């Protein structure tokens, strides 16, 4: 699996992502600076977390209109796998590659903690290693993770099996506490209509080593490596 990571001014999770990708694929990803219009040949393109352009205007809005995102959109249309994590998810929705929007957390606070993540649809390369209805432990770290879409869009996402992950209680967590940001229908990650683009708020790249408190993120990368060669 050949991978590429897109880097903007303000991106800050690209090294963690590079480590997780190299662990799964055996080779380091190509790091692509936002001004480079051309992407290297890759089986998986990752838009990592951080605060691209300082979250000016709206989180992800500036990066969504950069030249490199046009190349990412072209690649997605050709069927290349694209993963957006946290700010990467915000960028993909602002760019129109995924529906909906990410609003400020309902608590108005930055949330940084482990959450439970239920695998809803494991029928894609991203989640094939998990099997459905498993609850994973992964960290979130964001201020604007409150997924929103109108009811029609949400119904369509559910009808088309495009909800990838939902927040879920982690061992005994209270029912009103497990959703860290107020997202509608507890949505934590969604696919595009072809299942080759995934956006998610939790950080699988920060759950790949025992010293990070969880290794549940490994499956996402190993599943992709198995599917994409």
């Amino acid at each position, binding site marked *: 699996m050949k991978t590429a990571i897109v880097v903007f001014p303000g991106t800050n999770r690209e090294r963690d992502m590079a480590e997780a990708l190299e662990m799964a694929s055996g080779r380091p990803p190509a790091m692509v600076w936002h001004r480079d219009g051309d992407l290297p040949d890759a089986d998986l393109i990752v838009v990592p977390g951080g605060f691209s352009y300082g979250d000016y205007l709206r989180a992800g*809005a500036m990066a969504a209109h950069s030249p490199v995102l046009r190349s990412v959109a072209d690649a997605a249309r050709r069927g290349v796998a694209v993963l957006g994590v946290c700010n990467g998810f915000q960028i993909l929705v602002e760019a129109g590659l995924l529906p909906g*929007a990410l609003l*400020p957390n309902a608590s108005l606070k930055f949330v940084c903690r482990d959450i439970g993540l239920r695998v809803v649809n494991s029928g894609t390369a991203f989640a094939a290693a998990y099997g459905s209805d498993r609850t994973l432990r992964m960290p979130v770290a964001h201020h604007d993770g409150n997924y*929103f879409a109108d009811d029609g869009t949400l119904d369509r996402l559910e009808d088309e099996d495009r909800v990838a992950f939902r927040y879920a209680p982690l061992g005994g967590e209270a029912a009103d506490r497990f959703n860290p940001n107020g997202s509608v229908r507890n949505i934590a990650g969604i696919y595009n209509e072809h299942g080759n683009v995934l956006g998610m708020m939790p950080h699988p790249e920060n759950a790949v080593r025992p010293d990070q408190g969880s290794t549940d993120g490994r499956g996402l990368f190993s599943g992709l490596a198995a599917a994409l060669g």
Partner: protein
Amino acid sequence: MKAKVHVTLKPGVLDPQGKAIAHALEALGFDGVADVRQGKYIEIDLEDGSGGGAEDRVNEMCEKLLANTVIENYRVEIES
């Protein structure tokens, strides 16, 4: 020429900042605040002589960048 752009959250979109402001106003003793919605105000100076169609161009700016029409409405005023 100046364009004044107001970007506001659509009705039905949760506005936790607006809610927090409403609570703060209540705590300060301001009665009768039913609801608060917070938005953005953007001023754009347009070069003189850019001619007609200014409103159309600013509307396009809103559609493409200034507002996220999934969650926000916008209103444009042109001042010459």
